[in-house]
């Protein structure tokens, strides 16, 4: 009887391991014989692309039935770090060339990245402007509650450049992981002012007011996109990247407030 109990325990362990391995498998496929795309396309995209990419994903799925677009939105530096550690992505769209370069240096991207949109910063204040913020100079005062992106995130790096150009030393109260986290602090009225992208102010609608400032035109964030070298679904990845560069996609980006090349 002892041998049966040992065998049973061993079988249980093997079964659990197999089940866990099954959890990790993906269903990415490539083109079939007829040239139809199928499977899942996993897109890692900067947080500021959330609304536009979600819409374009639906359009892409409508044009290619059989393909499902799955997203992971976040700070470009966090996404680049995940790709370096082997996250199973097909496409990477970063909010700055620096994070794309990080991924290229790690050997995860061999294709040439192409810029598809650019963006600029805008001051965001809660509805009603409770902190009576008038411009960039208010970011140098300690009284207002200020949220900025962390420096390693593209919008944080752009904000640093803007402050350097205007000679202001910012006094933030919190540094958030991506631009949407910063925007949330504004919509919740937890901070008096924040520096986010122009597209984020537009996406937030009337929960947030935007204040433009002259130095914003001097710091432009260009967004590169590239398929990943080890993409599980390379054919759909290439098709998705092509779609992002297409004219219908450009219209969606322009409507959201991005500048298209």
């Amino acid at each position, binding site marked *: 009887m*002892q041998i049966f*109990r*040992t065998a049973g*325990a*061993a079988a*249980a*362990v093997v079964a659990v391991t197999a089940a866990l391995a099954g959890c990790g498998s993906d269903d990415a496929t490539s083109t079939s014989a007829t040239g139809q795309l199928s499977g899942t396309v996993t897109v890692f995209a900067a947080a500021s692309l959330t609304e536009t990419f979600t819409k374009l994903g639906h359009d892409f799925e409508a044009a290619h039935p059989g393909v499902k677009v799955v997203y992971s939105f976040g*700070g470009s*530096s*966090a996404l*680049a*770090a995940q790709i370096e550690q082997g996250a199973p992505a097909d496409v990477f769209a970063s909010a700055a060339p620096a994070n794309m370069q990080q991924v290229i240096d790690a050997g995860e991207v061999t294709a040439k990245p192409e810029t598809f949109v650019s963006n600029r910063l805008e001051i965001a204040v809660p509805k009603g402007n409770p902190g009576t913020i008038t411009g960039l100079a208010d970011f140098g005062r300690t009284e207002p*509650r200020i*949220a900025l992106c*962390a420096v*390693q995130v593209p919008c944080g790096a752009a904000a640093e450049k803007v402050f350097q150009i205007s000679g202001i030393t910012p006094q*933030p*109260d*919190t*540094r*958030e*992981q991506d631009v949407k986290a910063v925007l949330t*602090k504004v919509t*919740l*009225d*937890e*901070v008096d002012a924040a520096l986010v992208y122009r597209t984020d102010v537009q996406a937030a609608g009337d929960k947030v007011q935007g204040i433009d400032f002259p130095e914003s035109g001097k710091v432009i964030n260009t967004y590169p996109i590239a398929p990943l070298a080890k993409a599980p679904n390379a054919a759909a990845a290439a098709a998705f990247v092509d779609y992002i560069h297409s004219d219908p996609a450009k219209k969606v980006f322009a409507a959201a407030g991005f500048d298209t090349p």
Partner: protein
Amino acid sequence: MLVLPALCALAFLVTPLIGLLVRTPWASLSDRLFSAEVGTALRLSLICATCATAICLVLGIPLAWLLARAQLPGRGVIRALVTVPLVLPPVVGGVALLLVFGRRGLLGQYLYDWFGVSLPFTTPGVVVAEAFVAMPFLVISVEGALRSTDTRYEEAAATLGASPWYTFRRVTLPAIAPGVIAGGVLCWARALGEFGATITFAGNFPGRTTTMPLAVYLALETDPDAAIVLSLVLLLVSVAVLVSLRERWIRGAV
């Protein structure tokens, strides 16, 4: 045969810790250990965890006494409510704290309008978040200790003329001391490791609200070796906490 699954469980729990030790950048360890970022985050973490534990002791021991000794109706419901932060995902706790103590929160708006005080993005905010998640540990531990002590000593003290406060100070507390110590140490360790509630409620700013777990999370994106060193420090603190909870000091309490 239970040995095989038990060995698998042991391997599952121990291997990540071994991996951390194996991947530590031993060559640059001393430089990184004494760098400014590690020092700032560690100091902030230790101060906040200690303050949070102090709050938990001052508020939690009376609550435990209430649950164990007082004849309240609905004690079971109160005990269940007290245990909620224990099972609540920490980030949900952070969101809840934000909705109550944020600038537009249920109570926070009065704090802000009347006193100009706002807890998010401040060090006291970190302490509040940590106390919220750590207090159930203390309350449960102390309540267990109270239930297991003999009330006859307290009754004897009362018949000898001691006031309730004197009895609590000189008879009850010494009797439950092992439970209080064990609960306090667990509370401190939980507060030290808190991440979700801290980053959601208190935000992230070096020296003010960036505790060690937040520093690890941030460092992982830019400098994985720094993240490993910070993780090692936290691991050593955790091991020290466990070693301190040795049975002969807290027999019968945990």
